[in-house]
C-alpha cells in the first residue's frame, strides 16, 4: 500500500506538474502516527537500529541517480537538473573533476528533498579542490525542528526518521529558522496551502516496509550506504583507519548537534565543502527545554507572590 500513504496534489504554480503527488497530507491525519503512540514497526531494514546512511564523499561521482530516485519514490516533480543529467555527460566522470559547464546547481526546495552539487574551493597552494556533496535532511537524533514545531507537524518517529505531517502544519516556518543545517524548505508561491518540504527518509513509503531509502539503493558507486547507525559508525571508523592518508579523521554527524542519522566521511575538510562548522556538540533542543522546564515553577511562584502582595496591600489600604 505504498501509494496509499498520505499525499496531496501540488497546487498553485506547480500546477504545471499536476498529477504529481507529494508525501504528507490530507489523508495523513488518520494514518500518520500520533506523538507518543506506537509507531510503525521497527525498521527491520536497519537491523532494528537507528536507520542511517553513510555518505563517502570520495566515492560520489555526481551522477544524481539518488536525486532522481528520490523524485520518483516520493512523487516529486522531476527537476530540469535531474533531466539534464540523464541526457548529459554520463557517470564516467570521476570524483573531483570539474563538472561540465551545463551542469546546473540544484537547491533544496519544498519539492526537491535532496540535491547533489559540486563544491569547489581553492586550497592554500591555489590548487582547486572539489567534491560532489549530497544534501538532505540529516535526521538528527535530537532534532531542533521537531522541538520547535508548535503543532508536532514535524515529528520524530520512534524508529528514528524525522517526518513531516502537512495536515498539522500552520506554516510558521520556525522549523526553517531552527534547523542547524537549514534543511526545511517552504512553498513560497502557494497562497493558502503552502507546505514545508524535506527528506522523510522514505519512512512511510519504504523504510517501514522493510526497504532502505530510495537514494541509497540507487547509488551506483557505494557512496551512499544504508544500515544501522552503530554499524555504519563502525564501518566509517574502519574506512578511515584503513586509509588514514586519504580520509580525515572526522565523521560528520557522529557528534554534531548531538548526532545525526546521516553520516559523512571525506578527504577534504568539511568546512571547505560548505558543511556548517562550529555546530555545538550538544543537542539544540536542550537550550529551550532548560527554560520551558522552569515555567510551571515560575507560574506557581508568580501567582502566589502576586496574590499575596495584592491581598496584603489591599488590607493595608483599608486599614489606613
Amino acid at each position, binding site marked *: 500500500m505504498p501509494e496509499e500513504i498520505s499525499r496531496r496534489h501540488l497546487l498553485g504554480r506547480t500546477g504545471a506538474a499536476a498529477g504529481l503527488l507529494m508525501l504528507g497530507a490530507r489523508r495523513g491525519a488518520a494514518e500518520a502516527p500520533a*506523538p507518543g503512540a506506537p509507531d510503525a514497526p521497527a525498521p527491520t531494514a536497519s537491523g532494528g537500529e537507528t536507520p542511517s546512511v553513510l555518505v563517502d564523499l570520495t566515492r560520489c561521482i555526481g551522477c544524481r541517480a539518488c536525486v532522481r530516485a528520490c523524485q520518483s519514490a516520493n512523487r516529486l516533480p522531476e527537476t530540469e537538473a535531474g533531466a539534464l543529467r540523464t541526457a548529459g555527460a554520463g557517470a564516467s566522470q570521476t570524483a573531483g573533476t570539474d563538472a561540465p559547464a551545463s551542469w546546473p546547481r540544484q537547491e533544496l526546495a519544498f519539492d526537491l528533498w535532496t540535491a547533489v552539487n559540486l563544491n569547489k574551493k581553492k586550497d592554500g597552494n591555489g590548487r582547486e579542490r572539489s567534491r560532489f556533496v549530497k544534501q538532505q535532511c540529516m535526521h538528527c537524533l535530537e532534532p531542533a525542528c521537531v*522541538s520547535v514545531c508548535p503543532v508536532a507537524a514535524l515529528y520524530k518517529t520512534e524508529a528514528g526518521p524525522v517526518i513531516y505531517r502537512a495536515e498539522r502544519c*500552520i506554516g510558521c516556518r520556525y522549523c526553517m529558522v531552527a534547523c542547524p543545517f537549514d534543511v526545511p524548505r*517552504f*512553498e*513560497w*508561491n502557494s497562497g493558502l496551502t503552502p507546505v514545508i518540504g524535506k527528506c522523510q527518509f522514505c519512512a512511510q513509503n519504504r523504510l517501514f516496509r522493510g526497504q532502505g531509502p530510495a537514494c541509497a539503493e540507487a547509488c551506483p558507486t557505494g557512496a551512499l550506504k544504508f544500515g544501522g547507525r552503530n554499524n555504519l559508525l563502525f564501518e566509517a571508523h574502519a574506512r578511515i583507519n584503513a586509509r588514514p592518508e586519504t580520509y580525515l579523521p572526522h565523521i560528520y554527524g557522529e557528534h554534531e548537534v548531538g548526532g545525526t542519522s546521516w553520516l559523512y566521511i571525506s578527504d577534504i575538510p568539511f568546512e571547505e565543502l560548505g558543511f556548517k562548522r562550529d555546530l555545538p556538540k550538544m543537542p539544540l533542543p536542550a537550550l529551550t527545554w532548560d*527554560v*520551558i522546564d522552569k515555567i510551571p515553577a515560575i507560574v506557581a511562584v508568580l501567582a502566589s507572590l502576586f496574590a499575596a*502582595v495584592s491581598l496584603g496591600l489591599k488590607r493595608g489600604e483599608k486599614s489606613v
Partner: protein
Amino acid sequence: MMVETAGWSVLILCSGIFLWGAWAAAVDRRPPFLAPALTGALSLLWSVAAVVLTVRFINGLGATTAMTDRFPWGVWIGLIQAGVAVSSGGYVVAATVHIFHIRRFEPVLRPMVLTAFLGYCFVAASLFIEVGRPYRLWHPIAMWQHHSIMFEVAWCVTLYMTVLALEFAPVVLERFRMHTAIRVMHIILMPLVIAGVILSTLHQSSLGSMFLIVPQKIHPLWSSPLLPVIYLISSVAVGLAMTMIASFFSSKAFGRALDASLLKSLASAAGLVLGLYFLVRAVDFTARGAWTSVLSPAWLGAFFALEMGAGVLWPALLFATAKSLDDPRRLVAGSFGVVFGVTLNRLCVSWFGMVPHTGPVYFPSSMELIISLALVAAAVAAFALAARFLPVFPAQDEGHARPEQAPRHAPLAPPSSLRSAKGPAPQVPAPEEA
C-alpha cells in the same frame, strides 16, 4: 520593478504625512491641509494594502515578500515581536494599580489596556498574514507540543488577548449601562489581572527564548542565554514609555489636562528599569566576552550603538535629569527613544543579527512594509475611535473613576472622522503649559 517603485513611493508618502501629523499634534499646531492629507494617506495606504493582501493570499508569500528559503523570517517577525513588547503597557499598569495598589496610576489604566489590546490585535493580524496557513492558527491549541516555545507563546497570547478583552469589557459595559455585568466583572477583576500579568511575564520573555535554539545563527551582540530576561526587562521599560506617549497624545487629542506628576513618576520608573536593563546587558556582554565582536562587522556594531545609545542611555539620561522631568515633551521624546530602541533590538535579534550567518539575502519588499504600516495605522485609528465613543479616559478633575459611575463621553466633537486623533488642536490648554 515598477511595482516596487510605486510601493516605496506610497510608503514614503504615507509615513511622511503620518509623521507630520504626529509632529503637529505634539507642538499644538494645526496646519490647514493636515486633516485632508491624513484622510488621503489613510485611504491610499489601506487600499494599496488590500491589493497586497489579495496577492498574498492568491500567489503566496513569495509573490509579496522578500523572504526566501534562505531567509524564512523577515521584518514581520521582528515587528510582531516589537508589537508585543510595545503592548506591555497594559500589564505593567494593571500590575501597578491592581496588584501593588498604587491608585495614582488608575487614570492611565484604561487607555493602556486599550493600547495593549489593539497592539495584540496588530500582532494577531500580522501573524494571520505571516504564517502560511492562517486558518490553522488554532492548531497549537488543539495539537499540543509542549517542547515548543512557539506553542507556549501561542497559548499565552491567546489567553492574554482574552484577559485584555475582559479587562476592557467594563468600559464597554459602562457605555451601555449594564450594571450587573459590571459588578460581576468587578469581582473577577483581581484574579484576571494576576493571570494577565503572569501570562505577560511568560510570553514577553518567551519571545526571547524563541531564539535560544539558534545560538550559532545570531551575531554574538544579540545571541545570549539571557534573551528571555533581556526581553522581559525591556518590555517593562517600553510599557512605561508607551504609557507616557499615550497620556501625552491623548491629552493633546482630547484636550485633557496632562497629569504632569504622573508623567514624572512614570519617567523615574522607566529610568530605573532602563538602568537595570543596561546593567544586565553589560554584565551579559562581559560574561560572554562579546565586546570583542562589537566591530565585526562594523554596521552591526553601529546598530548596536544606536540601540543602546538612542534607545537606552539617552532616554535614561532624560528621565533622570530634573530639568527634563518638568518638560513633558522631553519625556515623550525619550519615550519614543525607548520604543525605537526596543523595536530595533527585536529587529536585530530576528533579522540583522542573522545576516552574518545567512549573507545579505534579504531586504523587505515595499509590500511587507505597506502591510505593517497599514496595520499600525488601523490600530491607531481604532484607538482614536474607541477613545471618542467609550469612557476610556476618566472625567476631568476626577482622578479615581469608579466602574459604577455613569458613562461619560470623551469630548465632544462630532464623531465624524479620525481627524482629531491625528491632527488635533487641544480644546483645553494643558495647565502645565498655560
